[in-house]
């Protein structure tokens, strides 16, 4: 959108209060949505919960194409459609709700810097793992991405998306990285987040901000998504304060509000059970079964 159009939209946004029927669109939960999109969607949901704004989650197979910028999730509020966390935060701010008003300039700079860190490292690592790691691509991503479409469209779309993501990885210099290097980057990022969080309940002490929502979205998704190997979630599990942080936000903003992210963080017993029914033993037809074992109660 051009700058003039954006200014116009935010004027209109400021005029109306938040409606009751605001909806958030994402891809199909059980069968289609991928790790990175799920993380983004959860981050937006967490942010809206933190602002106390009601939102209804609707799953559509073509959510990616409906979105104005090509990225999920997007929200449909009144007459406007806004996608991605950054613009959504600004849109919500134009309506008069903001989580970061109490921060001074230096803290706002820090918050934006950490949000970029998460986008730069965690999100890119998730995309790399999904689309550039052969094992994951073959077993999980291709099947999930094209699952709502008939043959041959499912293969074509999946290959097209893979080509696009690989181009982007090459352009930013991640094309030549190995999986181990990517996991090391994830570890560094988690270490930085853990050190910044320290023993505080949220990143900026008492009140959560959009940074907390974003970090929660990514970490929770990484911890609860089952991939071909556990290395990614192991990296996050090394940091106990990040685990406690995710638990705290889940409890406070999802369970208590009755929005129930029903599957809580995997306990040891569940992990042993899952390992014994490893993915490789499943027949091919069961790929469409829920990889993400949680359901959102709407």
């Amino acid at each position, binding site marked *: 959108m051009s700058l003039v159009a954006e200014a116009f939209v935010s004027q209109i946004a400021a005029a109306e209060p938040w409606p009751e029927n605001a909806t958030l669109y994402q891809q199909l939960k059980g069968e289609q949505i991928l790790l990175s999109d799920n993380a983004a969607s959860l981050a937006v949901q967490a942010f809206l919960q933190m602002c106390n704004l009601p939102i209804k989650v609707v799953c559509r197979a073509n959510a990616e194409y409906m979105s104005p910028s090509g990225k999920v999730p997007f929200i449909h509020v009144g007459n406007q459609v806004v996608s991605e966390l950054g613009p959504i935060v600004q849109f919500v701010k134009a309506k008069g709700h903001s989580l970061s008003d109490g921060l001074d300039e230096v803290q706002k*700079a820090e918050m934006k810097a950490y949000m970029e860190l998460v986008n730069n490292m965690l999100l890119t690592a998730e995309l790399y793992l999904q689309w550039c790691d052969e094992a994951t691509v073959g077993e999980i991503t291709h099947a999930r991405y094209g699952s709502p479409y008939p043959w041959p469209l499912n293969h074509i779309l999946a290959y097209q998306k893979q080509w696009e993501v690989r181009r982007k990885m090459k352009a*930013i210099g991640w094309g030549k990285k190995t999986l181990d290097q990517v996991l090391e980057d994830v570890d560094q990022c988690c270490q930085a987040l853990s050190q910044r969080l320290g023993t505080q309940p949220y990143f900026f002490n008492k009140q959560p901000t959009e940074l907390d929502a974003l970090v929660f979205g990514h970490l929770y998704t990484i911890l609860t998504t089952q991939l071909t190997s556990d290395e990614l979630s192991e990296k996050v599990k090394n940091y106990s304060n990040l685990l406690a942080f995710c638990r705290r936000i889940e409890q406070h903003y999802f369970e208590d509000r009755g929005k129930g992210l029903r599957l809580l963080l995997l306990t040891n017993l569940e992990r042993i059970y899952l390992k014994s029914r490893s993915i490789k033993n499943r027949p091919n037809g069961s790929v469409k079964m829920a990889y993400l074992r949680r359901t959102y109660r709407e």
Partner: protein
Amino acid sequence: MAAPLELSCWGGGWGLPSVHSESLVVMAYAKFSGAPLKVNVIDNTWRGSRGDVPILTTEDNIVSQPAKILNFLRKQKYNADYELSARQGADTLAYIALLEEKLLPAVLHTFWVENDNYFTVTKPWFASRIPFPLSLILPGRMSKGALNRILLTRGEPPLYHLQEVEAQIYRDAKECLNLLSHRLGTSQFFFGDMPSTLDAYVFGFLAPLYKVRFPKVQLQEHLKQLSNLCRFCDDILNSYFRHSLGGKLAPLQLSFICVEYLHILLGLYKQNSLLIEEVCALSLNAGL
């Protein structure tokens, strides 16, 4: 370490030791941490490679990207972050990510994509430092790489259009510069009195933007209004890079300075004494 560390990188101009951001980051870090680095400037002979610059060569290792080079130097005990706390180290990573996501697209656009700038300044400069047949190809390839990077990271698939993203990336870059300025405040470096990795990165990204003279300068104008960032760049140039500049003054730089002097002298009738200070500052910078 006994083994000599050699860095090959793009050369300097306009008062900078190097015009290329990544090379400048590595050079600045080496100065801050005291690493003895022998700098081989790429010129238009066929010696040395031009891809993936800057490249650090030791006896048995070749390391290529700035992040990897800095890691290598730290392992060799040249560590500029020794006194930082864990949280400051985390802040460093976060701010570097901010620079790469928000500022880098606009810097790439100013240098490589904006037609006026590219054809009058960047392309001739790089072409003069690349041997003949390659000088027709390589700058074009670097420009396409920059455009690609901007579009793939900021554009909207499947039709990538530059016009849609131009306004957005410049807005983001200005916001990033404001954030850096707030964070720097009035202190000399980002973390106290000693420069660290973050200072090297910020210097590497800002100094070319600040010093290189372009026809289309909207981002440069914005940067010049943030006086603490300009002061930051000038301080580092004066304290750490004076000797490498003062010795040999390229003819091009000398002619720029002569033109500046004439310009100032002609204007001296109308201007006040501030100009005399400018002249003194200019001559100090040139090391005369």
